[in-house]
């Protein structure tokens, strides 16, 4: 007896109880759909983080002043002197010392708290990949004159000015007046902080009016190009160790990171997130599989008499086994196929702020798994059906 004919029997079996078959398929549909869609969401968020981090500038190296070596007696603070010394490194294009403070910005009646009020040099804008969208950036001349000018992020501009054109307006930063000369281009969120909610002013102006002339918080260094980032980092480390008299590099009073490291960390986090989402979805796929076993058991019980008749008419064990296995697999494959379609359709919408990116291998995997689920979860009911003795099956009421 040919496979196609057994397949037709199975098709009729599935079609005999459409509602039940449909609900069983729904279980698999949700399972497969969830796996594909959630993996797509995880992948999408990983992609988004990657893109946003690249937008932050890939040539940059950040030196953060720390308190790790506070008890060693080193000079632990980053100073402008140290920043100046770093300019001598051959693979460094620019060095921008940063002071960071959190201040309330005011304009007219509106006020807005900004976590990242930064005092720095013009080199920061290129190092951090922050082009201007409107107006202009401040220059070295503004730094030399400690000019009270400020460039603000796009979120800050919206919060503070709403519809007013910010260029040329005078705003209060911590009670001191600054003139807005430019608005930065939007970057998009790269995690927990919003890089668009910021205000950047010349370093001396911020020190004079807001932070005082204490140590600087960090130094942003731009390498000559992407390939020389690690070289530049080594040079910077050597200079820092010399300037800060570090003998034990394990407890250096600063931390140095480059964008590539940051990217790797964030990508890793996003991948963990994807695996976690996939695992949760896989559980629902498993539940769907158990649903198939359940419904096939019911079907076999319900059709015991029919199985008995077929056996009395000479149906070999193999044919009965194949028929029920195909029925189970049909349920899972059709359910899985519809689930994949639903997931691909669903992936065109933004979910929880993330544009899902479907991973082709996850579609193939989910479909493969759904076939396997049909075979695996269908095999017990099918072998029970095939193993029924015709005499018992015929007597069954």
């Amino acid at each position: 007896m040919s496979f196609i004919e057994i397949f037709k029997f199975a098709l009729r079996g599935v079609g005999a109880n459409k509602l039940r078959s449909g609900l069983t398929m729904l279980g698999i549909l949700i399972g497969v759909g969830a796996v594909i869609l959630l993996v797509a969401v995880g992948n999408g968020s990983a992609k988004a983080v990657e893109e946003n981090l690249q937008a932050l500038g890939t040539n940059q190296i950040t030196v953060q002043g720390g308190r790790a070596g506070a008890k060693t007696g080193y000079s632990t603070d980053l100073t402008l002197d140290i920043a100046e010394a770093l300019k001598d490194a051959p693979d460094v294009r620019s060095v921008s010392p940063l002071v960071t403070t959190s201040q309330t910005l005011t304009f007219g009646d509106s006020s807005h708290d900004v976590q990242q009020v930064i005092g720095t040099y013009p080199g920061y804008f290129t190092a951090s990949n922050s082009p201007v969208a409107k107006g202009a950036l401040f220059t070295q001349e503004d730094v030399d004159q400690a000019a009270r000018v400020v460039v603000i992020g796009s979120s800050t501009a919206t919060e503070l000015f709403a519809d007013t054109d910010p260029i040329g307006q005078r705003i209060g930063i911590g009670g001191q007046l600054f003139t807005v000369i430019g608005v930065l281009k939007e970057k998009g969120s790269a995690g927990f902080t919003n890089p668009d909610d910021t205000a950047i002013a010349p370093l001396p102006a911020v020190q004079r009016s807001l932070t005082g002339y204490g140590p600087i918080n960090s130094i942003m260094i731009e390498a000559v190009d992407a390939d020389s980032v690690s070289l530049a980092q080594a040079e910077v480390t050597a200079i820092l160790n010399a300037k800060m008299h570090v003998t034990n590099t394990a407890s250096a009073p600063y931390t140095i990171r480059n964008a590539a490291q940051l990217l790797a960390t964030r990508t890793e986090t996003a991948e963990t997130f994807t695996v976690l989402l996939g695992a949760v979805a896989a559980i629902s796929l498993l539940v769907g599989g158990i649903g198939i076993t359940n419904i096939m058991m019911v079907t076999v019980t319900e059709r015991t008499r029919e199985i008995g008749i077929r056996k009395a008419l000479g149906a070999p064990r193999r044919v009965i086994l194949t028929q029920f296995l195909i029925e189970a697999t049909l349920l899972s494959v059709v359910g899985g196929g519809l689930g994949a379609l639903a997931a691909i359709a669903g992936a065109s919408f933004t979910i929880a702020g993330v544009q899902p990116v479907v991973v082709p291998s996850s579609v193939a995997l989910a479909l493969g798994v759904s076939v396997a689920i049909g075979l695996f979860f269908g095999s017990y009911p099918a072998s029970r059906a095939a193993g029924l003795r015709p005499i018992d099956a015929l007597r069954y009421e």
Partner: protein
Amino acid sequence: MNVIEVQDLHKTYGHGEATVRALDGVTATVPRGDYVAIMGSSGSGKSTLMNIIGCLDVPSSGTYRLDGVDVSELDESQLALVRNRKIGFIFQSFNLIARTSALANVELPLAYAGIKPKERRERALAALEMVGLTDRAAHDPNQLSGGQQQRVAIARALVTEPALLLADEPTGNLDSHSTEDVMGIFSELSGYGRTIVLITHEDDVAAAAKRVIRLRDGRII
């Protein structure tokens, strides 16, 4: 040549005190072309005998040769083959497959025998014509009367040209008019030389057979 040869057939159920001797030494032969009615009250062992003859059950001891083949030596897949090729079953409750047309029901044993769809269809239609139901070929069992369903079942039993037609109370669920129809078909088939074994407890049904085997307490009387 004998279609059925049973020798000292025993069948017991249960163990120890509770042992039931459903068959207690049955010896009988049915030659080709015979039309035999097996009679007996309920509990006489006639259903057990029918199940063994139909290769649906195996005896506890004794030998059974069907069409010259010792059935007790066969494994499950060979038994399936024997049921398919040698025996045509007709049940009391018709046992047609639901939601499947009369034609497809009749084709079913041929499908299991691995016969090509075209030939299958021709043979199934011929069998349906034999029982006078050509015009009902496309109907599902629930669209047919009891008598019509039993005639479809007879067509299904006939279609493989089996050595033996085995009918278990074929008229048990039928009214007297349909009973006459069905018994008429059996007589006709017997006339063509078919071997028929019919199990019944109705005397007027048994009267149509060429001879009657009576069972009581698992023995032939």
